[in-house]
């Protein structure tokens, strides 16, 4: 079972890989979409990685960008979904 530290480090490693920058860890409140760090295809990759690495199924039809736009918000979302 994944604990919260694991969620945090896994999400950060996925985001670092997708954005090609460790800025996500340095500035976890950065807006990933307005900075152009993530686009829709990278978002799809994010959802697929969350599924394969953490077993989290995010229904894509409920994916609202405004609630997933920073590393911290993504971590909080994933933690809440692990319930």
């Amino acid at each position, binding site marked *: 079972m994944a604990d919260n530290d694991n969620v945090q480090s896994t999400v950060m490693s996925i985001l670092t890989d997708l954005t*090609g920058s460790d800025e996500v860890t340095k500035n976890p409140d950065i807006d990933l979409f307005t900075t152009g760090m993530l686009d829709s295809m990278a978002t799809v990759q994010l959802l697929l990685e969350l599924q394969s690495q953490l077993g989290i199924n995010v229904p894509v*039809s409920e994916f609202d960008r405004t609630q997933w736009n920073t590393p911290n918000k993504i971590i909080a979302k994933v933690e809440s979904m692990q319930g």
Partner: protein
Amino acid sequence: MIDNIITAIDHYGETDPERICYIYGQDTNTYGELKTKSDHLAQYFAQSELPDGAPVMVFGGQTFEMIVTFLGLVKSGHAYIPVDTHSPNERLTQIDSIAHPAAVVAVADLPIEMPDLKNFTHADLAAAVQTGTDGYDHDKAVAGADNYYIIFTSGTTGLPKGVQISHANLLSYVNWAVNDFDLHEGVHALSQAPYSFDLSVMDLYPTLVLGGKLSALPRAVTENFKKLFEVLPNLKINEWVSTPSFVEICLLEPTFDAAHYPDLTHFLFCGEELTNKTAANLQKRFPDAEIYNTYGPTETTVAVTGVKLTPEILKDYERLPIGYAKEDMKIWVVDEQGAAVKPGTTGELYIAGPSVSKGYLNNPAKTEKAFFTEDGQQAYRSGDLGFVNDKGLFFYRGRTDFQVKLHGYRIELEDIDHNLDQVKYVKQATTAPKYNAAHQVTQIVAYVVPNQNDFKDEFALTQAIKKELGQEVMSYMIPKRFVFRDQLPLTANGKVDRKALIAEVNK
């Protein structure tokens, strides 16, 4: 068989004017409107004293006014150059300087002033469609070898190339598509690709000549997944046309299946490699649908090979075929000397026949390099690597050069390099694609030797480079990842060793 695109579309406006043609959100437009408005626009353009036969830029999004304008222009004897609203401003300037267009039609407001060019504003169009009579001068309309549209695509020198597609090219494509993809009169198609991308022609013209409906799905909807899945099930489309990347987004949603989309019977893919996994997943979700994989460079009009993906094909070929040659085309495989090779041997694909473009607009050097004549037919050296098996099925295996497809968008890596080199913070730059296990490009990585700068860290430098580059190139051409180096690896000849960088990215 259709013998004229314009009259085939007008036929529905004349015989069934109330028939629905275009759907955008809550708005619908009919074939009667399409005919009347495009007739009026054709008369208006004819009276505007534009130089005969000169192309016209059309700037806008995915709206009914765009197809009215396209049709109005070809009826008045002018090819159109579609430019999507998501293009950087510099794109408009570049196309203007290469194409020497007669005018620009601002279906959407232009983001920059183009004072040296005749401008038709949205208000001009709105006034013009209200006046005039039915009909247009058929002798003036685009026909035969006249250019019908010109689509600009990435060029290795940093400047785009305008691919000229004639009425004869388009006709050859449309007749094949209607027949080989088993499309029926009144088909209701998804219109997702922007008009500046030739994938849009795959849904636009076969649908219009069949008196079908186009449901527009603009970028504002596709980017917002929540919105996308509110809209998509209500479109009730029969025919899906997209890149494999876009359907992969939709397959993430468990309700994207035949039970929730009972009208969806046809899937057509083009623009990049369709993986066996995606096709198999789709076949499981839509067991009765016809799924087609196709292939073709913009220079040969949308697509020149196609195949219906049966469960047997998915079982037999781990890497899927791109299809059989369109019947009026000759496609063959050659070695590095240009000599034909045996079936099963990989080489460059050469394509000849009636849907091959006459060449690049105002660019004889590039045209001569890529085009030639084969047995009296126009022919194109695709730069794509592939082979044909003993059943006549073609397979794609990569490129002879550094052109890549990123989610369906065609990009010359040299084009990005060239534009990166112009950025003031960059001393030298070379890009490399990152591939996944299914041979798809997932990311473009830039290796940059920066100039002296005062940015507090690499992230700030990266953002500044991306911002400046974004003023010159399409957003999909901006590398996602930047790696900063003091120097780049060189080959024995002293050139930047891109292959070493590609190996490093993909290790």
